[in-house]
């Protein structure tokens, strides 16, 4: 008489298990991105170096899973990010969700598998997320003046994120099994 052998974590090999694994990989990547983002400025002499690693993960995930994937990753990454910022709760979640889903929808005609296209999409999503965040500040809080926002927030956010995008897109791709 033979008994069926049940391997440990056998259930994880199913489609549902794969989804869980992918979700776990995304969550781990988001947590590491936030921890790195909060620590990076201490490693540079000039200071103020804060590239948006979470946004890069959101865009990467969105390109792999579609606009809904970008929306979910943006919401969860943004919400976690809000906890590590002095800003209002929910603002980061909304701005990243909008950027993550909109960039995927708008880039449909493009060949998105090419690495340089992904970098361009990260750059675009940077601007979208910053503008949405500013809009939320106008709606719910006292917004800072526009020229200050461009000089101190949007421009540094843009170039710092684009600068680090190739490396972090590569890391995200590896973790997500691309």
């Amino acid at each position, binding site marked *: 008489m033979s008994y069926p052998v049940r391997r440990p974590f056998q259930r994880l090999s199913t489609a549902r298990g794969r989804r869980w694994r992918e979700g776990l990989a995304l969550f781990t990547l988001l947590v590491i991105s936030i921890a790195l983002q909060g620590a990076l400025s201490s490693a540079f002499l000039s200071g103020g170096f804060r590239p948006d690693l979470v946004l890069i993960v959101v865009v990467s995930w969105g390109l792999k899973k579609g606009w809904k994937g970008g929306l979910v990753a943006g919401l969860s990454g943004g919400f976690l990010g809000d906890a590590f910022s*002095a*800003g209002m709760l929910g603002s980061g979640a909304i701005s990243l969700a909008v950027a993550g889903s909109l960039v995927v929808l708008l880039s449909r005609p493009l060949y998105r598998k090419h690495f340089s296209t992904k970098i361009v999409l990260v750059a675009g999503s940077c601007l979208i997320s910053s503008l949405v965040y500013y809009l939320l500040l106008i709606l719910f809080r006292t917004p800072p003046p526009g020229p200050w926002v461009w000089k101190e927030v949007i421009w540094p956010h843009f170039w710092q994120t684009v600068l680090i995008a190739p490396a972090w897109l590569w890391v995200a791709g590896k973790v997500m099994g691309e």
Partner: protein
Amino acid sequence: MREMRRIIIAGAIGLVLIVLLSISPHLSSHIKIRVAEVFTPVQKVFYAAFSHLGGVAEGIGRVIRAARLNRSLEEENIFLTREVLRLKEVEKENQGLRALLDFKKKSPYRNIPAQVVGRDIRNWYQSILIDKGTAEGVEKDAAVVSARGVVGRIIEVAPHTSRVLLIVDRNSRVGGVLQSSRLSGIVEGLSGDICVIRYLPRRSEIEPGEEVLTSGLSRIYPPGLRIGKITRVYSEKFEYQGQYADLAPAVDFDRLTRVMVLVEQNQF
């Protein structure tokens, strides 16, 4: 049916986010700092590792700068030696006066040492997370200082984590006084490494290089703490607004690893 479910889920998410944005800042702060506390151990590891990395890079830079600084420091040394002798005389005189008045030296603040575990992840704000909270006696609005000067104030507290709003943040306001001229103004944050002191009297002589200290007029910061040095002086557009000046903070916020939280003794 499936389409309907999607619409309901999207609507629910949207509603939750609108509610999150509309809830009181007090409740939102409470939720945020509690979530941050859960992930603080991860953040702590990364911050410590990158601080060491930054330390190595800074070391190389220091060697280069040290050679340039050496000559000016020698001249400054001669001046300071004279100054020390003068201050010793003042100290003796002070001791005598204290004894005369039976002055009891007692600090009204309790010092809580804390370690920086992370910086604000967004460029919009200038804040740090520290590894001490209500369990150690930290309170909201307590002043935070370092060996060099004022760092900021506590804005969110959890049992073992707190968030400090730095003085360089745009939402920060500190009562300041110029050390030699005793003119007072309000120090506001401007960007990552600059502050501005506003509402200084229009016809007063203000020189770049002058030290700015806390005035003690706000209930948060004790008087006499270093804020920074004046770098440039401007005049406001309208006469009644007086003068304003850029300020280089005394604290290097990028190299900050240890701070001290000042909690009033009678409150704890």
